[in-house]
């Protein structure tokens, strides 16, 4: 087998897989919301309402595409594409398992192990903001513009604490590659803790997760689409599959962010205390590692839902205040402490 063929298979598989998770997430979100709020949630289409996303998809596909008369057409059409493409491509550097050996060939379970994985995620992640601002601007709707502006300001602001939190991780592990960091989290830390990033970077983890929620426009940072204030934010004027792309892109973003959190802070595919890889064959370990990784990711996906239905929403200026006055100093402090610690111990 050629390397490029393997690469293509991996890309397709992971693409489908991420898509599938995102689809199921739309169901989980609504079902979870229902259960949290003492009601069943969607339970009509299929068993437990599992086909609900399918029904939604069909609905979105078959709806008439409407472009508002006064919209700036090119930007309007470009918006959702520019939003969903980076969302899909960002997962390329996130691992989803250890490695699998097929026909004597070692295949790492990651689309590409770039040695600047972090930078790729940060760079591609911030591309998404173009889709939002273009969609908001192109709609020629005041609510959309407000939503787009809110989103831009918020994403730009929270890139900084996100990057700073990641920087501390780089200090600890000395590499930019997510795979290397994952590998480094095997074993134990201080003798009794799993050797996970969260125990080495507890503050960094909190900073990262808060900034990640803000980047993903999730509650409590969902002001770009705060429906009680600005109707639907940047996608007020969108309908049919264009709206679908926006909504979809968000869920794909969630999958990526959860993957990054697991890879960096929660020991990737490692079980705590047990090194399963030593007991299992190469193929079975590949599958098991994938499952472990996926389970961890699902927990964080569920966290997104759980938090969403618990918290109220920030106000625009409070989000900015929290970002610039709260998170960035804390992140700097975190870097300082980490650097000091490394300097003292090494």
């Amino acid at each position, binding site marked *: 087998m050629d390397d490029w063929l393997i690469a293509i298979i991996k890309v397709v598989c992971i693409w489908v897989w991420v898509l599938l998770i995102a689809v199921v997430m739309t169901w989980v979100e609504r079902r979870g919301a229902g259960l949290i709020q003492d009601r069943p949630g969607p339970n009509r289409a299929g068993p437990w309402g599992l086909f609900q996303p399918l029904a939604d998809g069909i609905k979105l596909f078959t709806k008439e595409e409407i472009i508002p008369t006064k919209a700036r057409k090119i930007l309007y059409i470009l918006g959702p594409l520019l939003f969903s493409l980076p969302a899909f491509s960002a997962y390329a550097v996130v691992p989803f398992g250890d490695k699998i050996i097929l026909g004597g060939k070692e295949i790492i379970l990651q689309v590409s192990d770039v040695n600047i994985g972090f930078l790729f995620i940060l760079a591609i992640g911030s591309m998404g903001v173009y889709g939002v601002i273009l969609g908001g601007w192109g709609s020629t709707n005041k609510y959309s513009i407000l939503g787009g502006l809110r989103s831009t300001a918020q994403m730009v602001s929270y890139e900084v604490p996100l990057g700073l939190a990641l920087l501390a991780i780089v200090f600890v592990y000395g590499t930019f590659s997510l795979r290397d960091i994952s590998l480094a989290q095997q074993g134990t830390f201080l003798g009794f803790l799993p050797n996970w990033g969260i125990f080495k970077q507890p503050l960094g983890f909190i900073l990262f997760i808060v900034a990640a929620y803000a980047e993903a426009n999730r509650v409590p940072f969902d002001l770009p689409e*705060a429906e009680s204030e600005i109707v639907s934010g940047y996608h007020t004027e969108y309908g049919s599959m264009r709206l679908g792309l926006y909504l979809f892109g968000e869920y794909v973003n969630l999958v990526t962010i959860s993957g990054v959190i697991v890879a960096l802070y929660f020991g990737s595919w490692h079980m705590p205390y047990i090194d399963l890889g030593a007991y299992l064959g190469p193929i079975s370990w590949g599958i098991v590692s994938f499952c472990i990784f996926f389970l961890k990711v699902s927990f964080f996906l569920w966290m997104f839902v759980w938090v969403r239905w618990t918290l109220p*929403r920030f*106000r625009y200026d409070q989000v900015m205040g929290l970002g610039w006055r709260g998170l960035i100093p804390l992140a700097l402090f975190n870097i300082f402490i980490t650097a000091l610690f490394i300097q003292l111990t090494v």
Partner: protein
Amino acid sequence: MNQNPTSQTSYESDNYVTINIGPSHPSMHGTLRIITMTDGETIVKAEPDIGYLHRGVEKLGESLTYHQFIPITDRLNYCSAIPNNVSYEMAVEKLMGVEVPEKAQLIRVIMMELARIADHQVCIGILGVDLGAFTPFFYLIIQREEIYEIFEWFNGARLTNTFGRIGGVDADLPDDFEERWEELKPNVRKANDETEKLLTHNRIWMDRTIGISAFSAEDALNRGFTGPCLRACGVKRDLRIDEPYCMYDKFKFEVPVGKNGDVFDRYIVRMIEMEESLKIIDQAYKLYKEMPSDAPLMARVPKVIKPPAGEVYSALESPNGELGFFVKSNGSANPYRIRIRPPCYMMFQALPELVKGEMVADLIACISSLNIIAGELDR
């Protein structure tokens, strides 16, 4: 304030954006419309525009008989129809000089307090939804459904109750009222508790509500505020205590008073009022049980009501504030003029002052906390 907030000036400006919020907008309660001029997200000027739900209730009343108007009052504040009914009935009874039997008054008290709880639950729930916290709304609304269940078993309707008749009430409490009430009481407390846990001490919630659209007591009185919003400003005024009607002077309850008159105070005042309402119902039900089972529920009123010519104003403390009916009679079977004084009408006109300098998101919080019901606003 030398600059009048509602005066019509041009909305065109290079520096400001004019945003038209409503009449169909996810968080406009009913059909309100607010034209805001914003500097970024800060509101420079807001002008409410009402009348989208105007149904000419006052005009309609002039063509109906006194009794036929009762169902129309249901449709004023549809979140709590019962105080509307009772307020109107009280006005006509005052005009006729009819004394309502005590047992009927107790039933009215019980039902009105239940309606007050239901209204506050909706108000707080919606306030949460408008600020992004969806879940408390559902916890509260489930208990409201239980309250509506009591209404349903009382006289057959859940929302538009058409409660009471001129001179009394139309039905006795259902036999299983006590059972339902004992079941409901802890559940309401639990739902309120959970709401408090989710919201009150949450920093996000506090940031969003404390100090938002604060109003001084002086301004509030000048603007004609009543009810929880006035009490949140620090004025202890409650018609149930100040001008007791329906035997309210026999119950012991406290009137919560706020300090700043901001959204948070209104929220807390409403929270405490629910608890007090529960206490009132307990006391009223105790008194009710002491009455003989065949005690009269209706005063002797003629079948066709023709009050003597005259005009009276009678008000009660609805969940939202002073809800008054002015009824003028010319001696015929139709009221000559009915004027409704809805509580949120007076509060909504202060909106330009309330939200000036706040942000768009605060405008939404402010409207929710005032509990604007378009049905009674536009009549």
